[in-house]
């Protein structure tokens, strides 16, 4: 081919390439914009969250996803409840002979500084009790490492779909103050369900609290939700590492033990002695949680707490609690339980002082074993005495 002919042939080829490039760019931009708008309008995250490799390709997690250092924990914190529960072993179909107990609570229930097989739920399963009807009691760890009754209420609003026969709700005074209710990020990032709960149960919480994360249109687009989408993917990927190692929390070799010598500070969240009033504590949230369980029996238990014998231990039990406030709390909780007819256990001193790890409520594996021994009996009492849950999801 001569040079001019070759140049003439190259010209249409260049035009074709330019047209193709233009079409690719225009179509890509249009498609991207369309997907963005669709994601903003439809919000596919709940559906995507339920698509999970856990409990099929990967073993379900023994506790809810939570992790500050994902590359070491093989776990991560995310706020999508559907995805969190879909990754948990509780999402497995319930066996015919299973008596399903869901354990709800804070970091002490989740098992801070403990491997997944040494948490309270795991220790209760180790006791391996069976009901009078021959059903095997199977306890699921639905603790979440943050102290707030409202956070527990949010989780309780989800758990009924997992066919519980009994809910054991472990509480401690530090979860009750007003300032603890809307501060957990998981609560702030679930404004829709949380506002529904506040409205439904007329809770003394602000529906328009500024801490609620209210995404605008752009936040709801594909670009705005890229972090949430990446979290969903990461949750699945870390599932492989979890399956391969059985690790869902990097436990440090050493930690700072709970404080023994305490400050001479008698206040509790700005409240001063001599007495707590019921209105100082979020009993309305506790009541809402019991109501949210519907027909499923709820056993409320006051968690064990560390009792210091160090400096200023005459003023405070521990870093969290002044004596006056904690004593009042126990009395108020018992009175509320009696008034509402709740099943209630006060286990505040069920564990020896040597079994607390880095905080006044975090227990060692042995501490959890002792607590499990004290809790399994009352669980069986409820299991044998109460009618199984009638409702299905």
């Amino acid at each position: 081919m001569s040079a001019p002919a070759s140049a003439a042939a190259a010209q249409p080829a260049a035009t074709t390439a330019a047209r193709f490039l233009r079409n690719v760019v225009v179509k890509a931009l249009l498609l991207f914009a369309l997907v963005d708008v669709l994601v903003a309008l439809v919000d596919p995250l709940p559906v995507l969250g339920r698509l999970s490799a856990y409990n099929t390709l990967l073993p379900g997690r023994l506790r809810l996803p939570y992790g500050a250092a994902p590359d070491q924990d093989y776990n991560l914190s995310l706020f999508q409840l559907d995805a969190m529960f879909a990754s948990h072993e509780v999402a497995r179909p319930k066996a015919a002979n299973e008596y399903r107990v869901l354990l709800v609570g804070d970091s002490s229930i989740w098992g801070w500084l403990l491997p997944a097989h040494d948490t309270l739920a795991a220790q209760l399963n180790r006791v391996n009790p069976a009901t009078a009807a021959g059903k095997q009691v199977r306890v699921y760890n639905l603790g979440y490492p943050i102290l707030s009754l409202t956070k527990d209420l949010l989780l309780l609003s989800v758990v009924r779909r997992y066919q519980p026969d009994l809910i054991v709700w472990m509480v401690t005074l530090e979860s009750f103050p007003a300032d603890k209710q809307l501060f957990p990020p998981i609560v702030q990032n679930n404004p829709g369900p949380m506002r529904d709960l506040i409205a439904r149960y007329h809770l003394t919480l602000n529906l328009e609290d500024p801490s609620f994360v209210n995404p605008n249109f752009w936040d709801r687009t594909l670009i705005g939700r890229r972090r949430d989408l990446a979290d969903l993917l990461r949750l699945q990927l870390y599932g492989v590492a979890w399956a391969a190692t059985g690790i869902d929390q990097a436990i440090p070799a050493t930690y700072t033990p709970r404080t023994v010598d305490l400050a001479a500070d008698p206040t509790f969240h700005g409240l001063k002695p001599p007495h707590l009033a019921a209105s100082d504590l979020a009993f309305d949230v506790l009541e809402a949680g019991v109501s949210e369980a519907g027909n499923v029996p709820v056993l409320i238990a006051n968690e064990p707490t560390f009792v210091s014998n160090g400096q200023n231990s005459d003023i405070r039990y521990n870093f969290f609690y002044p004596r006056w406030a904690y004593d009042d709390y126990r009395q108020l909780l018992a009175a509320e339980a009696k008034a509402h007819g709740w099943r209630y256990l006060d286990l505040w001193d069920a564990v020896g002082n040597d079994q607390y790890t880095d905080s006044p409520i975090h227990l060692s594996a042995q501490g959890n074993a002792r607590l499990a021994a004290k809790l399994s009996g009352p669980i069986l009492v409820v299991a044998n005495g109460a009618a199984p849950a009638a409702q299905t999801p």
Partner: protein
Amino acid sequence: MTLAQLLVFSALAPIARLWARVGARQWLMLAVSVMAIYWLQPLTPIRYLDFWLPTAALGLTVWTWAATRPGASAPSAAQAAARARMAAAAPAAAASAAAAQDDERRTTLITGLMVAGLVLLIGLGRYLGPLCCLTPSPPPAVGSVLLGLAVVAGVAALLFWRPAPARWLNVGVAALIGLFVVTKLEPVGQLASAGLRTAAGQPADLALASDLRWLGFSYLAFRLIHMLRDRTAGRLPAVSLREFLTYALFFPAYTAGPIDRVERFVKDQRQPFRLDAAAVLEGGTRIALGVLKKFVLADSLALVALNAANAAQANSMLWTWVLLYAYAWRLYWDFSGYSDIAIGLGRFFGIKLPENFDRPYARQNLTLFWNSWHITLAQWFRAYVFNPLTRALRARPVPVPVIIFITQAVTMVLIGLWHGMTVNFVIWGAWHGLGLFVHNRWADFTKPHAALLDSRPRLKRLANLLGVVLTFHFVALGWVWFALPTPALALGVFGRLFGLGGGP
């Protein structure tokens, strides 16, 4: 290279097109490359080192060029006499050559001034307040920068005006290897770090080898050694300082290759450049593919790939294999993704960088694997280690199998050492050296029977498939040595992979 850096580099393509119209594309490529080596350099804990390391890279490149430019070697008395005779016989040709030499010197001077100006400008960044800096930490005071530039220029001038004998270029090669050892061998690196810390007025007892994070040096050393060796052998064309600096520091390939050859690169540089739709399409497609491989696939698999932490934690044979497969694919997608990005970016600037990967995990034997995995690295070692060693051994009465074993093993162990000077990298190299030797012998042994398979296509397909599976697994098992820091950890993983214990 981060996604943001990639976006910035891609956005420079239209500017390169505009500059190409006024014949200034090469200047733009040089300026961007010089600035990029400062921008891409990671932060180091030693004060100002993230400024001095790129400056050292620049200095080494300039010195290499000055030492290897045509006529840099001191002419012998006979050569000088011949030149004098030629000048007397053809004065017009001699005048034209002199004019070309003047032109080259002018370009060299402008290049030198431009590079020095850019470095000074980067150094002045420390006075820009919130706009500071192109480097990850504020550069040193302007006086130190000027002093550094003076050292680079002084040595370059010395090499330029007082050429050393050609054999001295080997000293340059040895110096580059020495620097390489400093960056890769932990005790030496720690010692160097202690020295640098002391010089910077920082506590030497905190020195770590990892303080010397010299981005791109491994690849730069390859390019400079290539220049020094081939210039000594008289194999390279004349290249200007501007062309050589752009070649050695070309920003898309600076951090992770591909390792181009200077004569090929310069040919692209000298060709007229037109960023048309086809080039944008080709470059854009490669970049998109690279981004998918690196930032989506590889970075996702990195979360579960075998590493020093999970190697000791994995609790079953099945899941240990899963971690290993994840590592194998993560490594491939990460590295080939980077290569795709580099090739795509190069295309935007009219440079067709060589391919680095060609479906390596689909190869039927280890020899084919090494022809398609990190191709430019393998070619470099073939040219500067394997071939010379083979020639040297063949000159001696050594049996062929022994020659093959020695050359394969030495080449692969050196490739291992290039990745890092640890026992595990040596074992990884030996693993592949031995594998290549065994394959070579096997291929020699089965050669007479190979024709039998041609008449049985189904059996041939099955044999090929078996070859792919075996080769992939040999390579994947080799990655155990590569991925883990100690032989004990690697042996533990091997134990678990084959059900021989070694669990947590």
